[in-house]
């Protein structure tokens, strides 16, 4: 028998659910405890932000919102590894990555509150893509961005995030396929939270891992414990370095769990057991990093309390800013359709304004 190809997929983990090391060779960046504390703080603020968002939705002040509860390690791991000049093409849930890149909570609220201005990204990189609701489509945008970097000889990397469900979509396959064929600086992170709304992971594919899809496309591929930020960050660092130096793209599968409902419009009790969710909480990414930091004497209950209070104050400020934002005038729906409004449309714009004034 001759073998045409064989493969294996590495599974990367540093911390167990209790925050205890499962191996000795920790990556260099973990020695910088200040940085590790910074990562932890953002995971906590992401969670505070998420809780606030749900409360806003429940009181009728926000539209449908997709919670990121349980994804904090994956998302902050992705965002913190990237450089500002890199491009992020997210789907709709990766707030931890976006907050790290400077997206403001008030912008998130505006978008999910029914106002396009949430996509302005005042402080985040202007070249980052906006939220992409049609599943998977953003992966191809990232591949296009990566192709642009290659054409112009820039040492930049395009990163897209995608769900376990989204990894079934042709867009995802197409993106990693062209990245492999063209050796593009693309890092595609599959945030496998086990559920695509009500559809469990096993229904998406017969493949044993989602990471191995990357191998079929000719990319590097790795599966990581997505609740262990050290593992996510290490895989991201390696993937970004390879991509930046022209060695090719990577698919990272971050295995995590969606602890909340799919969105505020969903009720997960219809399709999954409380026992499964309870079990998943034992792998809570925030608790895990905290335990590790405490074992290093870099964090304690007092710091925790102080930081949470700070986050609450920050989010209150963001919520207030959001609630104070006045609605756009009716003509706003015309004003960004084209660089310059065609004459044919100018008339409709005038009609809309006249109607608004009651003529």
């Amino acid at each position, binding site marked *: 028998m001759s073998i045409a190809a064989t493969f294996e997929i590495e599974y990367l983990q540093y911390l167990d659910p209790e925050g205890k090391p499962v191996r000795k060779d920790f990556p260099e960046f973990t020695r910088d405890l200040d940085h590790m504390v910074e990562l932890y703080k953002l995971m906590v603020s992401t969670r505070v932000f998420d809780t606030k968002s749900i409360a806003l939705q429940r009181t009728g002040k926000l539209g449908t919102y997709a919670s990121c509860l349980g994804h904090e390690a994956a998302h902050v791991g992705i965002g913190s590894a990237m450089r500002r000049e890199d491009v992020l093409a997210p789907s*709709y849930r990766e707030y931890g990555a976006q907050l790290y890149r400077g997206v403001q909570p008030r912008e998130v609220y505006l978008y999910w509150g*029914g106002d396009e201005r949430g996509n302005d990204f005042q402080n985040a990189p202007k070249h980052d893509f906006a939220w992409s609701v049609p599943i998977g489509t953003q992966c191809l945008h990232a591949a296009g961005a990566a192709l642009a970097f290659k054409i112009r000889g820039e040492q930049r990397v395009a990163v897209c995030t995608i769900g376990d469900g989204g990894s079934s979509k042709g867009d995802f396959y197409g993106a990693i396929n062209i990245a492999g064929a063209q050796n593009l600086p693309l890092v595609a992170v599959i945030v496998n939270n086990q559920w695509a709304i009500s559809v469990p992971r096993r229904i998406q594919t017969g493949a044993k891992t989602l990471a191995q899809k990357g191998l079929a496309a000719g990319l590097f591929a790795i599966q990581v414990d997505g609740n262990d930020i050290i593992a996510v960050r290490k895989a991201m660092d390696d993937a970004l370095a390879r991509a930046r130096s022209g060695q090719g793209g990577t698919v990272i599968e971050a295995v995590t769990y969606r602890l909340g409902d799919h969105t505020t419009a969903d009720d997960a009790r219809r399709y999954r057991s409380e026992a499964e969710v309870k079990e998943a909480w034992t792998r809570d990414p925030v608790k895990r990093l905290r335990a590790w930091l405490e074992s290093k004497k870099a964090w304690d209950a007092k710091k925790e309390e102080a930081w949470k209070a700070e986050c609450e104050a920050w989010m209150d400020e963001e919520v207030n800013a959001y609630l104070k934002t006045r609605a756009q005038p009716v003509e706003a*729906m015309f004003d960004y359709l084209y660089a310059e409004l065609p004459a044919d449309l100018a008339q409709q714009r005038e009609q809309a304004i006249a109607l608004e004034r009651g003529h």
Partner: protein
Amino acid sequence: MAQVTLIEAVTMALAHEMARDPSVVVLGEDVGVNGGVFRATVGLQEKFGELRVIDTPLDETTIAGVTVGLAAQGMKPVAEAQFEGFIYPMMEQIACHAARMRNRTRGRLSVPAVWRAPWGGGIHAPEHHSEANEHLFTNIPGLRVVLPSSPSRAYGLLLAAIRDPDPVIFFEPKRIYRQYKEEVPDDGEALPLDVCFVLRDGTDVTLVTWGAQVKETLEAADALAAEGISAEVIDVATLKPLDFDTIHESVKKTGRCVIVHEAPRTAGFGAEIAARLAEQAMYDLLAPVERVTGYDTHIPLFRLEMKYLPSVERIVAAAKRTLAAS
């Protein structure tokens, strides 16, 4: 007899036809255990099993293409697009294969399938969950395009769509999914797929619409009646093939026509009706045809969406303009 909402009528029709015809299968995202994100397929998997109510991988191209294959090989698939804004990846399979299979093979193969999708704006939804895109399908030869606007029409038209030997796009106006209940007997009686429904008789002006806009249009007719203007209201229901005769008969009587739809104005389906009026009813008209439509913009996110959608006020004003013109 059951008092049901529009969406419950959809479920009822699906269950009825699945029980009657073992070749009917339902497939899509979240249609199984979850019963669909709007609950349209609730209880079906329990009743008919996982082989007939299929949760698919998350890929619309997969859903649409598998639907073509199922239908061409003797099944009667009813595929769900979770929202009309996610139907675009399905369009290649619909336009290039479903709509052409019979013609391509000179009748040897056909695609007796239904594509269902919640449709339209006004529910405070996120981006891509509020579009009206029926006109993209009415321009595809070989398709039927259906848009019911009441529980009983949803029931009867969906039965007809499933039984029809050709591909049908079945859009469901989600804004009125639960607007009201109506008595709908689960008697398996289909409605014809090629007629418009006259919902209200009138003599002064004909208001033509479909989908959720039927609500505003009927309210506009009430408002006009209060001012002594008698409006006839037509629910087109099946856009393609179009029953133009019913519209023409009405316009012969009223001499005036206002077409109402929430899709963008330019090349919306209202343009087709207006063109036919110009071709065939020119001398019956007493006033220029009016269209009350969405603007030629994307439907804005929800803070502004109601300013985009046709309102009762806009419909009344248009009707009055046709009266002022003659």
